[in-house]
């Protein structure tokens, strides 16, 4: 279908507007991190930096605990992502293909996990983790993150599995492939975009998780970035430059992840399979 000039202008105009809304805060944070402190707090804000300095980043990497937080966050996020994907895939496959009593009911029930705000389960969870000695342990965060990301991930993964034509699986069954082989050898390569989506969802959920990380982790050396950084906001003063540099640095792993995973988002993976 061809678009008229006016339609095209409206389309690109709206896209530019949305891009602006999304992009502006990033621009603000990223450029702020290289301004001199007096420019940051200047009464008249500057969109384009007039000064340039790397002092905030120097301070971030050398004088703050940021590197520790970064490592903690990365560890928690990567493990959370890995476990979420590893568990969501077989669970989604089971919900999708295997027949067992209560399948439909259970499939809906898992979404109940989202019926309660995190705060509601915070205290009981704290109690549970205290009892098994997981307070102030990063594993506790991984467990919580995986538990929170899984239900939605299972739903997402199942809808991706549903795009694979049934005959491909049947052909594999006739060819003698057991269920796990079908999942790993046939389905996984075909739903790579789905796996990537779930991975990104799980990573970002974990990367930005604040509530549980602030309560379940006690010592400074085990904090993740969101919690650790909240500490920079002091009671009487805020080091804006450091905060902005930290925020900028915290975005980088997410950008890298998207760059790495993005190439899995290719359409037409099942092309040539049927018809």
């Amino acid at each position, binding site marked *: 279908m061809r678009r008229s000039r006016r339609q095209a202008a409206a389309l690109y105009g709206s896209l530019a507007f949305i891009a602006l809304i999304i992009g502006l805060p990033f621009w603000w944070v990223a450029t702020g991190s290289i301004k001199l402190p007096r420019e940051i707090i200047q009464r008249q804000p500057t969109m384009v930096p007039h000064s340039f300095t790397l002092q905030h980043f120097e301070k971030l990497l050398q004088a703050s605990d940021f590197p520790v937080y970064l490592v903690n966050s990365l560890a928690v996020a990567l493990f959370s992502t890995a476990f979420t994907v590893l568990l969501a895939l077989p669970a989604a496959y089971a919900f999708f293909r295997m027949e067992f009593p209560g399948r439909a009911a259970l499939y809906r029930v898992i979404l109940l996990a989202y019926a309660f705000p995190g705060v509601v389960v915070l205290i009981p969870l704290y109690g549970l983790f205290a009892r098994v000695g997981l307070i102030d342990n990063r594993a506790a965060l991984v467990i919580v993150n995986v538990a929170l990301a899984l239900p939605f991930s299972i739903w997402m993964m199942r809808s991706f599995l549903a795009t694979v*034509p049934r*005959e*491909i699986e*049947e*052909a*594999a*069954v*006739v*060819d*003698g*492939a057991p269920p796990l*082989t079908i999942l790993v050898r*046939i389905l996984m*390569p*075909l739903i790579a975009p789905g796996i990537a989506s779930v991975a990104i969802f799980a990573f970002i959920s974990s990367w930005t998780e604040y509530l549980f990380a602030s309560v379940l982790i006690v010592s400074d050396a085990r904090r993740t970035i969101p919690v650790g950084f909240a500490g920079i906001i002091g009671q009487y003063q805020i080091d804006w430059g450091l905060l902005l540099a930290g925020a900028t640095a915290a975005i980088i792993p997410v950008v890298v992840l998207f760059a790495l995973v993005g190439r899995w988002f290719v359409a*037409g*993976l*099942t*092309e*040539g*399979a*049927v*018809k």
Partner: protein
Amino acid sequence: MAGLSLKSVKKRFGETEVIRGVDLDVTDGEFVVFVGPSGCGKSTLLRMIAGLESTSEGRIEIGGRDVTGEDPARRGIAMVFQTYALYPHMTVAANMGFPLEMAKRPKAEIERKVAEAAKILHLEPYLKRKPRELSGGQRQRVAIGRAIVRQPGVFLFDEPLSNLDAELRVQMRIEIARLHQQLGTTMIYVTHDQVEAMTLASRIVVLRAGRIEQVGAPLDLYENPDNSFVAGFIGSPRMNFIPATVDAVEGGKAVVSAPEAGLSGLAVATRGELPKPGAKVSLGLRPEHFVPAEGAAAALAGLVTLMERLGGVSYAHAQLGNGESLTVESRDARSFAAGDEARFGIDPARAFLFDEDGRRL
């Protein structure tokens, strides 16, 4: 290689019975085609033989072994799907080698068998390609190749040609026939296309509503159908059915008439049972069995509404006085013209009679 036997096989989905007791024996090396209209259960029956659908009742034996509850992979079958069902992320060679890999055959053997199959199917230049880089016909050949390498006792084809265009379909049909000659393996082939059934089958199984209507060699079904369903399904264009009345029974023949269609005194031989005078019957006449009206034993009269001239043959579509429509094949393109009041001669030896329930008389 193996024969196949179905013993009062039934399939229910919940309350609905889709296969209602099928008995069939297929001898080793036969090419059996299941035909029937959509929803007759032919694909379900094939999938039951493959083990992709469970069997609610009855027994399935392949090569004399009861496989009713066996896994698909252990039944000694290979299946070719309508949609090819290739593994899109694997090369042609990997697709064809997959079943052998699953059977944990040594690598050298896999390579050898894939090469053999590729040679039979003229796929050698494409072994390193992915399915999306192939044409429809090539994809279907890969699917067949994947079946061949397993050296199954029975090949199962589920409407393998219906995704191909007309020209390719004819070509692949010939290839499948050639393949059957070359391999000599039992093949079960599902189609709704009666031309495929007629040209490929050593025996045709006509199914309707989960039951076998008739089993026989293609020409047997054509020349000697058991009922009006089979008679109408086998043969193209389909048989004309004209309501008629039995006037008399003479010398083992039923004399029928359809006054409104201009037909009287047509004596048709029956297979055995003779209808009673006055009985309502259905007169079956194949479009290709009409003769010139002059000198014919009897004739139908009607108005030619449309002529289809294909060159070699022509089809006259006519409206009879009783409101029935009639299709008549003619070798002479100029014998009829649209708008003509015409008479169509009948050869009594090639006329069929069916009772009111559609049973052949």
